[in-house]
């Protein structure tokens, strides 16, 4: 259909960060200063989350209905099914705001990428990396602040471990902490980027080969629906694993 169409460039342009926002009819819209496309998407996602909870959510409702009910369902789920079971009653309740913020922030960035013209900020390691690093900080410095050096040591090294194995275990456990946080970063980034790459590849096939590749559009729609599910799933997994890791470090006896 378009013999000079560069599929590789087309996909990379869509998933990469840039200082331009490609809008139809307007052409590329240059973004000012330090603002990049993914940063802009991140701000938009944050604004939507703020709008959802500060404007749309009706706190004074005695019986929640509509959107309030829907949002409340997620909040209650995070509190009762993720935070409290994995971190205990006290820590679970105190970490619920942080986990809720993380969940809705990631979810909104994931969903934003599924809307045409918008981009997926979570398909960028520079967004998922800092989020995962915060979890790493909570796992290490958070444990240190909460349980002290002895508590951190106890969380890393089992008390029944023979002394000769301690150095080996210490290195392994520190490496394990980094891997856990790194896995959080890679999992979210890879899932969100891969989904978009697959959708764009199918759409690219249609552009390259024309109507012969018509079924590719159906496949793109199917992958889009799957991505919608993955958007929720990845936000859930990120928050769930964060709660599990923090719970393991804060309560090593379990």
């Amino acid at each position: 259909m378009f013999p000079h169409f560069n599929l590789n460039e087309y996909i990379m342009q869509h998933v990469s960060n840039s200082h331009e926002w490609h809008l139809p009819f307007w052409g590329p819209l240059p973004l000012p200063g330090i603002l990049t496309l993914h940063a802009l998407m991140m701000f938009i996602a944050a604004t939507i989350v703020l709008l959802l909870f500060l404007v749309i959510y009706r706190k004074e409702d005695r019986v929640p209905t509509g959107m309030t009910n829907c949002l409340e369902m997620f909040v209650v789920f995070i509190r009762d099914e993720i935070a409290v079971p994995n971190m205990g009653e006290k820590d679970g309740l105190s970490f619920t705001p942080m986990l809720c913020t993380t969940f809705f922030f990631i979810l909104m960035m994931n969903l934003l990428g599924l809307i045409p013209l918008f981009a997926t900020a979570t398909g960028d390691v520079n967004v998922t990396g800092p989020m995962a690093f915060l979890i790493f900080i909570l796992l290490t410095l958070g444990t240190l602040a909460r349980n002290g050096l002895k508590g951190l040591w106890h969380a890393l090294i089992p008390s029944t471990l023979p002394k000769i194995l301690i150095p080996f275990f210490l290195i392994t456990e520190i490496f394990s902490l980094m891997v856990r946080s790194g896995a959080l970063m890679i999992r979210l980034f890879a899932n969100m980027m891969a989904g978009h790459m697959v959708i764009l590849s199918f759409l690219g096939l249609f552009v390259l080969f024309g109507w012969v590749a018509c079924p590719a559009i159906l496949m793109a729609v199917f992958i889009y629906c799957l991505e919608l599910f993955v958007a929720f799933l990845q936000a859930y997994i990120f928050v769930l694993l964060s709660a599990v890791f923090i719970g393991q470090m804060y309560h090593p006896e379990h």
Partner: protein
Amino acid sequence: MPTSAQTQVPSSAQEQGGILTPDNTLLVLTWATFFALLFILHKFAWKPILAGLKKREDYVRKSLEDADKINQQLADIEKDKTRILNDAKEQGNAIIEQSRKMSIEISSKIETAAKKNAEEIVNSARQELAGERQRVIGALKKESVATAVALAEKILKENLDNEKNRKLINDAMKDV
């Protein structure tokens, strides 16, 4: 033959850097956005929302406990009601039985009294009847005497002294 998609290097990607290229600005912006979001939501959303949820859960829990208590009370009241109804039925039956007995007793008393009364009335009537009979007999006797005298007068055509006749008749009657 390689296609353009395979051979051409993505120029815009090169300009923008690879997808794994670190971007310190975005990294800092991510933290800033997240912490700002966390701060605002913690202050204006999560605190009131979680407090409201806790309040509602407590209210629902208390309401359910109250409902259980009320149900228990209702069940107790239902038991009491059944017991009271049964008692009332038993008492009612006892009262009815007692009333029946009393009514039978009273009716038998009334019957006895009525019989007695009737007997008395009959007796007094008999006595009165007997007295009346005696009076009627006396009157008849007087009437018979007068009639006999009148007949005798007519027959004998003799005017006799009334006193004398009466004496004669009385003497005759005594003989009778």
